[in-house]
Each structure stands twice: as structure tokens, then as C-alpha cells.
């Protein structure tokens, strides 16, 4: 039996655990949700970054400390972690 057929037999045994579930592309997830995130008070940016292990994360930038906005932000968007950073007011230089 060739390797591809073997893979088809083995894969369905572990398809649905959280760690191995295939996530949609992070760019699509960010694009889908960024308008509602940017509408929250003090949100100045939404981008794609990496955590310390190099995994992709969605990064939300705030103009200053905004506890109420942070409380409204989800911890994850469709499986991707959401990090919050204070980036300050961004101005044309």
C-alpha cells in the first residue's frame, strides 16, 4: 500500500481534537473580525504577529490603557490567540 493511502486511513482516527484541527487562514480571520474590533473605543490597530514560540497571533493595538475595551475583546478569534498591546496614538511623521 502506498504512503498516501496509508495516510488516508490513519488521519481520520484523530481528526477533531483542538490541537490538530485545521484553522482557517489567519488573514481571513482577521479580515472578518477587524471592523468590529476597530470600532471599540481606543483601538488603533489590528495586525498579525507572532507569540514567543513563533505561532501566529492577532494583535490589537490600543491608544492607552483601556480596561473596558480589553474586557470586550475576545481571548481568541476562531482559534487564534488575541494579544492586546498599548501602541499609543499613531501619527503621520
Amino acid at each position, binding site marked *: 500500500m502506498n504512503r498516501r493511502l496509508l495516510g488516508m486511513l490513519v488521519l481520520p482516527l484523530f481528526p477533531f481534537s483542538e490541537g490538530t484541527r485545521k484553522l482557517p487562514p489567519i*488573514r481571513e480571520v*482577521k479580515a472578518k473580525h*477587524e471592523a468590529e474590533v*476597530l470600532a471599540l473605543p481606543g483601538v*488603533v*490597530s*489590528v*495586525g*498579525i*504577529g*507572532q507569540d514567543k514560540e513563533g505561532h501566529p497571533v492577532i*494583535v490589537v*493595538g490600543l491608544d492607552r490603557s483601556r480596561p473596558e475595551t480589553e474586557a470586550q475583546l475576545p481571548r481568541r478569534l476562531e482559534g487564534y490567540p488575541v494579544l492586546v498591546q*498599548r*501602541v*499609543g*496614538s*499613531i*501619527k*503621520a*511623521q
Partner: protein
Amino acid sequence: MTNELLSIRNVLNKNQRQLLSRRNVVATGIGYKVTGGKRASNLSLVSSALGCDTRLKAVSLQAGDNLVDAAIARPINAHDVTDQILEIGTIQGTTSGVSGMAIKKSGRTTGLTRGEVLQVDVTVNVQYGEGKTARFTDQLLAGPMSQGGDSGSAVLDETNLLMGLLFAGSDNTTIINRIENVFTSLGVTR
């Protein structure tokens, strides 16, 4: 030649050496109203390079989302411009910015500084004076490596591949247009 202006060639006119910079820097040089003292030195700097009958082709800020803040200008005398960037040297080509890329720029205010691309595909609201905000998409975000007056600086990787045009920032953040978007928007190439 100044480090705020980047010598490029226009695809439509391959032998015509041109200047690329942030829109405001070029506009200031041809006599647009100078807003605030910070721009004052740009006036003489760009004027001396371009002269007073320079024609401007700008990509305007739009009501919706923006990709770049850039403009090109044609010097009166091509010999006034070189391909060298102050403190950096010659551009070796172009590349696409990715997370973790080590980058550098030479700017009027803070000189030669280095940073790292921390975020890509950034959608960001940028303030243009009091109460005026423009939203930009597909931007690159780096750590602090610029201040007011540095906009228009070319941003390169460590091997002098051009990857962006610096145009905005905060105390701890720098926002960079992707160079591929700049070139596409203005119809130019290097």
C-alpha cells in the same frame, strides 16, 4: 542627496531619474502650505533638490482605506540625485516584509536606526493633525525606530533590500508602507 528621498526610475520613462518620498515631504517642497514647524526644514531641503517648477504626481488620501502615503517628483537636474542613501549606501533590490525581519532606515530626525518587523497585514488608524484620521491597510508594524520628520525614509533589510516606506508612528511603534504597494500605487519600479 538627502536620505528622505529615494531615487527610483519610472517604468513609463526608464531613463528619467525620479524621487520617491512620503507625499507630504514632496508636497512641501513645491510650496504646499507648511503645517507646523517640523516641516520647515523639509521646505528648503526638498526645494533645493527639486526647484520650483517641479510637477507632482500624488496618490491622495481617500475617504476609505488607504494603502500608501507616497508621491514621486522629478528633479530638474538628474545629476543632483544619486542612488546612495546616507549612512546606508546603495539599494541592492527589493523584498517583501515578513514578521521577524531585521530592518533599518536613515531618517532626517533620528538618523540611522534599526528595528524588526513585529506585525504584518496591519490595519491602522493614523492621525493627520487634530481630528483627522486616515485608515491604512496592509501595513507593516515595527518597534520604535523613528520620530516626526523621519517619514519618507526608505526602509531596508540588513542586506540593503528595499522593503518599505516609513510614514507614521508613535512613541513605541513605527508604521511602514509595503514597497510593493508603493510602487504599484505610483506605477513606478526600481
